[in-house]
């Protein structure tokens, strides 16, 4: 395949590929069948794979994840869709107490090859509970792996890799980018490993760390900074647990400065972990403290002011300036 695709299309094609390749792969969730999901990510899958493999579930998140646990114990590889980030909490117990621990409790006898897809993040003007960034809550849970895709090509490959992974993967999809940009998918170019971060723009003066929806913001910030003669390196983390620190540390050792941008609340978020690890590993290379730009420590606000809450180009650039001023 070599064509221009959106993130939605990439994910859909990736799911389809995985289902074709392994009859044990099941898709389940609310509205994933006939409707193709509220974001149409599972569009057409039920028509092609049938109701036994693309399962429209009752409206019960704990039920969806809990039955997926049973299906995984029976040898299936369920791919579960949580309709929106803010609705994952009814399933939180099943995810952190059961999904995350089953392999450990059973001494490796009961693996949980499950993918929990969560459209996450804001910027779509939604009512409350439709714009959350719950990644730190899952990244803080041993036994889970957490990844976030940021573009159509990664969406295509990462979903397949997550499904092939024998560990449970929380798969975060930046919902505001589902239908935003088209990118060329050239299948002859082989993908990066799932649990790896990637330098998406080279630069010298500071390192921007981002994932999911903020990668686009970070790249825009780097463009804007370049106009002023500041050269920023941008890293798409892609994997949040485990973190792939190699490229991050290499970069910060060169630039001496790091700014983390995420939509989640700053307090105790991924940025805090990154700041701690960077400080531990490259203290003597640092010219400035690691700075964080993110959602404020408020509940996600009403959508008319969400642009104020979300880390935008200006706030990222402001943090870069503060870092450069040290």
């Amino acid at each position, binding site marked *: 395949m070599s064509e221009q695709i959106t993130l939605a299309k990439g994910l859909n094609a990736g799911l389809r590929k995985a289902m074709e390749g392994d009859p044990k792969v099941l898709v389940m969730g609310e509205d994933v069948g006939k409707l193709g999901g509220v974001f149409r990510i599972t569009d057409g899958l039920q028509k092609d794979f049938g109701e036994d493999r693309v399962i429209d579930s009752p409206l*019960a998140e704990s*039920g969806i994840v809990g039955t*997926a646990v049973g299906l995984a*114990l029976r040898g299936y590889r369920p791919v579960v869709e949580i309709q929106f980030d803010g609705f994952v909490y009814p399933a939180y117990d099943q995810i952190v107490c059961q999904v995350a621990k089953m392999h450990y409790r*059973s001494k490796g*006898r009961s693996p949980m090859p499950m993918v929990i897809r969560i459209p996450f993040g804001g910027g779509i003007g939604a009512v409350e509970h439709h714009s959350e960034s719950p990644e730190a809550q899952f990244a803080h849970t041993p036994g889970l792996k957490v990844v976030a895709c940021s573009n159509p090509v990664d969406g295509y490959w990462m979903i397949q890799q997550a499904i092939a992974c024998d560990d449970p993967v929380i798969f975060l999809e930046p919902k505001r980018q589902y239908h935003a940009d088209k990118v060329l998918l050239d299948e002859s170019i082989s993908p990066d490993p799932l649990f790896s971060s990637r330098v998406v723009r080279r630069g010298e003066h500071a390192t921007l760390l981002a994932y999911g929806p903020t990668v686009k913001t970070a790249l825009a910030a780097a463009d804007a900074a370049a106009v002023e003669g500041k050269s920023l390196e941008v890293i798409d983390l892609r994997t949040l647990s485990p973190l792939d620190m190699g490229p991050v540390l290499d970069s910060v050792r060169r630039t001496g400065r790091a700014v983390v941008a995420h939509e989640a609340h700053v307090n105790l978020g991924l940025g805090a972990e990154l700041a701690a690890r960077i400080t531990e590993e490259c203290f003597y290379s640092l010219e400035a403290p690691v700075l964080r730009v993110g959602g404020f420590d408020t509940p996600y606000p009403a959508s008319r002011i969400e642009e104020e809450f979300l880390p935008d180009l200006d706030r990222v650039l402001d943090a870069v300036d503060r870092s450069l001023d040290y």
Partner: protein
Amino acid sequence: MHVSHHGFGPDLVEVFGPSQTDGGPELVQLLTPEGERTHHPEFDRDFSAEELRGFYRDMVLTRRIDTEATALQRHGELGIWAQLLGQEAAQIGAGRALRPQDHVFPTYREHGVAWCRGVDPLALLGLFRGVDHGSWDPAEFGFGLYTIVIGAQALHATGYAMGMQRDGVVGTGDPERDAAVVAHFGDGASSQGDVNEAFIFAASYQAPVVFFCQNNQWAISEPIERQSRIPLYQRALGFGFPGVRVDGNDVLATYAVTQAALQRARDGQGPTLVEAYTYRMGAHTTTDDPTRYRLSDDVERWKLKDPISRLEVYMRRNGLADAELVDAVKEEADELGHRLREGCKAMPDPRALDMFDHVYAEETEELRVQREGYAAYLATFEEAGR
């Protein structure tokens, strides 16, 4: 019948009466507390002498596992133990109704069912001693790991049953092949969302799962009245599948009802809720003090319904058991008790570095580094001690 003045229909307490200590007229029973064989139009069946002796042996040995573990806890060998005293018939009846290809999702109290599945009782102690989280292979025994979070396993059971449907092992008519799942839980668990969601999923997909609720009247100190205003088995109807209340102290009835429910499931006719009406003779766990909330009168009344003595009376009266059998089983129980005592004390503690094992199927670099760091740290003590 009193009709509520709100016009919403009958008052439930009027309809069902207050808590029924005898289980009410719906109770399926094949053996009275006095050891009389009774008959039931729907669930009756014949039992061979061999089956009856098997039930007796299973119940006596299960009780011994329980009393032995309780004693081990008192001696500080176990951190805690969830006792099943009085629930032997409910568990053996349900456990013996299973076929090898069936699969069980237990709570933390299904020691008798574990026994029926062939899990070494010593393995059950590991969790309570704190050496592991369960060391048996669920796939090998068709018996899942104990689940501490109340009700979570009801969903796992339902999902597993959905997997059986997809594997084509339901409703084929081949008794060697058709399979079903049992989800165990308590009366308190019936209030949990997960159990209710499991009912909905199972009904919606007609999954081959038997929901087996041991209504032992208490969820720690909370009485059944705090969980339900109607008899629990009647809830099933609201979810769209049958429910039945069986005398959980009657191993014959429990066996017959569970077997029928399992067969229904294996045949592809969907879920059933079995409410085994019983009583928790012991404390909730060894940390509990039931004298704070429970009436000793109730305990005395339920002692008269003891599941083991009622079967023994029936068997002795009908020449199916004699002193020889009783002695032989007792001897076996003593041997088991001895093995559990010695085996429990001999269980090695896990090594500190074991905690890093099996967090992931594909281990992460982060965790590997943490393990190595801790190993190096531990090694400094060994060096210092030299």
